[in-house]
């Protein structure tokens, strides 16, 4: 056996577990979902489960999911970009420490963090106790879409901050100085240099906030109190309470299609944006 063929055999051997994982963890489940989604309980082919998205409460849930995911993505972006700029120029101790502080919550299970907000926002929760003692009007957002958006923003903000911060610190300092040198003020440097050059970070940040926000059911369950029904909640209920796996799978397929469409739109905007932002 030659050395190269041994090498490639070795490589194949090492890639084995990964291939097995892809097969069992991604491809097979996708096939199962597709099978359930396109069949009825008796196993006959049908597109009813897909078309079920058109029913009123399903379409509403999907619409609400898209809306809330969009709002929380925009809020995250508006918070994360300035934060990234501040972190980039931060002279407070070591740069790594400031970033660490912002990433720290990410290491905690997000269900715990969401539950914390539940306790904070409750009608008799900590925030309201404080507000009451100060004689201020009470905050009544628990079990509303606003609470769900708050939960999404809180849970997913680090996923927006990190890629944007990474993109920003990679920008060559000389480029910023060159822009100033050529007469640009702070705003122009931001518009013409910092934002265009951090587009890849912005795009991956948007992806990492938008997709989990669109598909979440835990945040809406905990902070929506059953009153904010997202598409994720409906799918979850079909698999658990309703035990209609076919319908759940069908709706999942529809949601996947929406995610793919959204990602394609973002990519398209990204490329056009890079060309037109100049």
């Amino acid at each position, binding site marked *: 056996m030659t050395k190269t063929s041994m090498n490639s055999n070795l490589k194949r051997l090492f890639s084995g577990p990964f291939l097995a994982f892809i097969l069992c963890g991604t491809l097979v489940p996708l096939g199962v979902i597709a099978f359930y989604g396109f069949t009825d309980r008796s196993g006959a082919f049908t597109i009813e489960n897909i078309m079920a998205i058109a029913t009123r409460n399903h379409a509403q849930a999907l619409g609400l999911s898209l809306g809330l995911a969009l709002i929380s993505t925009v809020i995250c972006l508006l918070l994360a970009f300035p934060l990234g700029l501040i972190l980039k120029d931060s002279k407070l101790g070591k740069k790594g420490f400031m970033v660490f502080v912002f990433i720290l919550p990410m290491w905690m299970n997000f269900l715990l963090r969401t539950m914390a907000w539940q306790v904070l926002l409750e009608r008799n929760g900590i925030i309201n106790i404080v507000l009451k003692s100060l004689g201020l009007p009470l905050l009544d957002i628990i079990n509303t879409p606003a609470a769900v958006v708050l939960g999404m923003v809180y849970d997913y903000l680090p996923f927006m901050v990190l890629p944007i911060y990474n993109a920003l610190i990679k920008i*060559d300092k*000389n*480029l910023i*100085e*060159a*822009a*100033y*040198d*050529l*007469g*640009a*003020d702070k705003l*122009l440097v931001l518009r*013409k*240099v910092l934002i*265009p*050059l951090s587009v890849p970070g912005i795009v991956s940040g948007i992806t990492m906030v938008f997709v989990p926000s669109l598909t979440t059911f835990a945040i809406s369950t905990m902070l929506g109190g059953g009153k904010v029904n997202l598409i994720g909640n409906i799918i979850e209920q079909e698999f658990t309470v309703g035990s209609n796996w076919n319908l759940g799978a069908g709706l999942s397929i529809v949601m996947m299609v929406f995610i793919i469409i959204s990602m394609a739109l973002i990519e398209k905007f990204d490329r056009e944006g*890079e060309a037109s*932002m*100049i």
Partner: protein
Amino acid sequence: MALIELVDISKSFDGELVLDEFNLKIKENEFITLLGPSGCGKTTTLRILGGFETPDTGKVLFQGEDITNLAPNKRPLNTVFQKYALFPHMNIAENIAFGLKISGKSKEYINDKIKYALKLVNLSGFEKRSVDSLSGGQQQRIAIARAIVNEPRVLLLDEPLGALDLKLRQEMQYELIRLKNELGITFLYVTHDQEEALTMSDKVVVMNQGYIQQMGTPEEIYNEPENAFVADFIGDSNIIDGVMLEDRVVKICGSVFPCIDEGFGRNKPVDVVIRPEDIIIGKPGQGIMDGVVTSNVFIGVHYEMCIEAGGFEWLAQNTTSYPVGTRVSIGVTPENIQIMHKPQSEDEEAISLDD
């Protein structure tokens, strides 16, 4: 009046003094070069001029007006950065137009200027090219074009040729001289390359450890170095301990050389500088002292030889080759011997440049 004046500029980073009471005047339409080893403060001087650093003390005057605290984007000068710093998300035309768009010039004006600037740097037709598709030399010329279209009063150049290969560097040197003459802009150039400095400059400022060591025309700097640091930094040289016996007579390595310097006093220790090309090699007994050739390397136009004589290894250059082991004599005409005072204090002590 000087166009730009640096007055008593001091600057330190993390407690380390980089510039100490630095003073410099730059005249209109001058090609002035700050030359020195890395860490001598030359780049810091440039950055203070560009507005990217604020001096701890001292003032920057532009036509007599204090611009020390003026933001970089408000200064009437432009910088060509060491690593070009072209905007990678813009094409060449957009890069060049960047400053012009900000100053609100009309579309026709901008287009004309782009054409003119590209022609000036010999890159006509490159408008639509991407930055990535250009070689280092081309990128550097675009960086220069981007700076000069704004018609700055002063162009600051921070080791702009440092990343280029030798041939390209030499070509660019001549192009920079041509540009400067065509544009009539004052050039302030920073480099550690003495050849670059001597080729292009009207005036060279040799710096070391935050101080100006010598300021003058390239000829003055080369032919009459004021101290051992300058002599060592500019070109090759033999720097030898000597004793000034009396006016016009210096004793080096036990032999007496006639020279043209006066006023050093009697029996005064001095530094003596003799350029290798000024050493006359002859038959034994014909020169001032005899020695043996210990090495001989052909380096292009001439041979570079080491000659052991009087306990000193002399560096000599000659178009005639003397093989290793040959007994020769060496001599120097009096006007080619440069006598310098020994440094008086630690501050003046020139650092070793053996690396």
